[in-house]
């Protein structure tokens, strides 16, 4: 079953490059998304065993992140197919600079999208250190052509930065993997084995390994100060891709970090690794706060918000105990919310033709449903009840206070407040008012149902956590929060 999860999207993705018929390709895309989601649901019911000699296995953390990825992919595919149909063979005029540009061939888009799904799935199921690395690098390479869907110089610049910075970061993570191999000695480089035999690991090498892996995968995850590629890549790519990047890919990179942290904690380096995580987490939140206030591009604002939430994730895991549970819940909530926000942003961009926050006014009037979702998204992403993020952020806050780290808690709250002010100013100003340039229009239901579904789920998670989900989250927390 695990192999099917990876191979189906991989094979169909490779084949999609050669399918000439556009409708057939779109059908294949939807079919793969549905099959993948179905298989994931099946994994919830019957937990599959290990494959490939223990290298591929679905533990609790893997299942959690796989579910997020699969669900997000399904919803974004529902949004993407009509989007592709609209953008097909389109020559668009760029809103910012006024030149004409075309899009990449749809076959490239679909093929890379499916390969991207396969790579992310591989990250979640991989239990071997080296295989995890290969999968993370594969996600970078599969997503680069996706960012360059709109063929113009800004997206090209974003792609180049993305490729180079992430590849260098991941190369450093490879060096970290080698350090880990030295620390492990004869122990096979499978995470469960490393945790089990943690007493035999060479501690100084493990320390250096964790540092390199944190920096390396942290680049991919968007932790400041390694985040410089993120605002460009997430703002220049099409909204569907931004949703997937923010919602699924950053989580996969985080998975790499927390698995290594698990090994460190088992070997007695828990304090060292947790301190680093808390540090990076707070710095990310601070950088995001600084750049969100007064941001002029709403997609960039959403990208910085992703950086902030990745910081919160790192902070949660760094605090330990209940903080890990909070972080895992936060991963679920944030992915769904951010994906929804990016899809709505895509609607706004499509209607207004501009990404500038100064030029967009009156979304509530022009696009009623999207406007409501936009305001709801603001409340959700900044952590207001009754949305799910409130619960997860509150759990992390409680963990900080319980651990006696009032300084961290105060900084955390202060930064959240600053970000709330920044985002609220921008997003509310965009939603309210009257638009002079753009007429109110009917929204196609394919553009509003996917984000609406996501918003509903986030709302529901704020009020009621399904038992199965709580169980999985607790299992993950237990797995990772090993003291």
């Amino acid at each position: 079953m695990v192999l099917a999860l990876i191979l189906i999207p991989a094979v169909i993705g490779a084949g999609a490059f050669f399918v000439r018929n556009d409708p057939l390709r779109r059908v294949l895309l939807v079919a793969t998304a549905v099959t993948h989601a179905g298989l994931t649901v099946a994994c919830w019911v019957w937990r599959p065993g290990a494959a490939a000699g223990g290298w591929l296995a679905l533990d609790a953390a893997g299942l959690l992140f796989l579910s997020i990825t699969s669900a997000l992919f399904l919803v974004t595919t529902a949004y993407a197919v009509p989007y592709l149909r609209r953008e097909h063979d389109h020559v668009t005029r760029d809103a910012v600079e006024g030149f004409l540009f075309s899009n990449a061939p749809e076959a490239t888009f679909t093929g890379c999208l499916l390969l991207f799904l396969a790579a992310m799935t591989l990250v979640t199921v991989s239990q071997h250190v080296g295989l995890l690395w290969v999968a993370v690098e594969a996600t970078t390479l599969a997503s680069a052509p996706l960012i360059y869907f709109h063929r113009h110089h800004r997206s090209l610049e974003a792609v180049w930065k993305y490729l180079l910075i992430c590849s260098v970061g991941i190369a450093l993570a490879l060096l970290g993997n080698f350090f880990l191999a030295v620390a492990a000695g004869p122990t096979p480089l499978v995470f469960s084995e490393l945790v089990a035999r943690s007493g035999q690991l060479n501690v100084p090498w493990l320390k250096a390994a964790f540092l390199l892996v944190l920096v390396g995968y942290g680049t991919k995850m968007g932790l400041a100060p390694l985040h410089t590629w993120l605002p460009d890549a997430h703002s220049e790519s099409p909204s569907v891709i931004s949703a997937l990047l923010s919602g699924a890919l950053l989580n996969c990179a985080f998975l790499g970090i927390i698995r290594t942290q698990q090994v460190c904690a088992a070997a007695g380096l828990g304090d060292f690794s947790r301190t680093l995580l808390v540090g990076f987490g707070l710095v990310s939140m601070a950088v995001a706060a600084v750049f969100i206030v007064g941001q002029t591009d709403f997609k960039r604002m959403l990208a910085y918000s992703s950086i902030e939430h990745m910081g919160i994730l790192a902070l949660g895991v760094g605090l330990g105990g209940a903080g890990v549970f909070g972080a895992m819940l936060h991963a679920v909530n944030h992915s769904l919310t951010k994906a929804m926000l990016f899809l709505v942003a895509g609607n706004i961009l499509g209607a207004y033709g501009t990404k500038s926050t100064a030029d967009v006014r009156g979304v509530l009037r022009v696009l009623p449903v999207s406007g409501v979702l936009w305001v709801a998204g603001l409340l959700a992403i900044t952590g207001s009840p009754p949305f799910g993020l409130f619960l997860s952020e509150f759990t992390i806050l409680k963990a900080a206070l319980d651990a006696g780290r009032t300084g961290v808690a105060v900084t955390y709250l202060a930064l959240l407040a600053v970000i709330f002010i920044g985002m609220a100013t921008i997003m509310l100003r965009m939603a309210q008012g009257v638009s002079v340039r753009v007429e109110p229009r009917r929204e196609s239901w394919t553009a509003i149902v996917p984000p609406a579904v996501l918003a509903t789920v986030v709302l529901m998670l704020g009020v009621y956590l399904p038992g199965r989900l709580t169980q999985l989250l607790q299992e993950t927390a237990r797995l990772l929060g090993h003291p």
Partner: protein
Amino acid sequence: MTLDTILILVVLTNLRLLGASRIGASVRTVAVQGILLGLLALLAHHGEPSVSVWLVAVGGAVLKGVVFPWLLLRALRSADVEREVEPFVGPIASLLAGVAALGVSLWLAQRLPLPDGAHSSVLVAVALFSILVGLFLIVARKKAISQVLGFLVMENGIYTFGVALVRESPLLVELGVMLDVFVAVFVMGIALFHISREFDHIDTHELTTLKD
């Protein structure tokens, strides 16, 4: 004896890269470095090299020595770019920085608590040196192709590190890493081509539209 010679040749290729003024020469130097590393992997192997080690070493040498330069030079040719390396830091300063980096790497390698005997420290020093040179090239060169070459040199350094310290790496992982680097260079080559077509140059210093 021959292992030492190969290591010194690798160091010389790195110094050559730092002082090079033409892109074609840089690409060819990286190719030579790739082949040298394949030889290194064979020579440094503890004990009798098995078939898988042979496969990885020869495959890696062919990939880095033949395929990558071909890909990069093809991207450059169709891009019709000027042949000069345009550095932020000139060749003389780069060379001096390289010699300093070599000193630092040797010093660091002696300080690291290595699990193996004396031989590893030279390998580790050369590995660290290649990583530092790769990072330097990425930062101190303007043209996108030089950044790709810097990335390759950095990967070479990390690979040398793996050869020095990791006793036995699973074949699948080695192949996976090679495949990843191959696809990375492939995608970067395509990006290079697009950049040259879009901007009429490949000076990444000019890519400053996106900022806050």
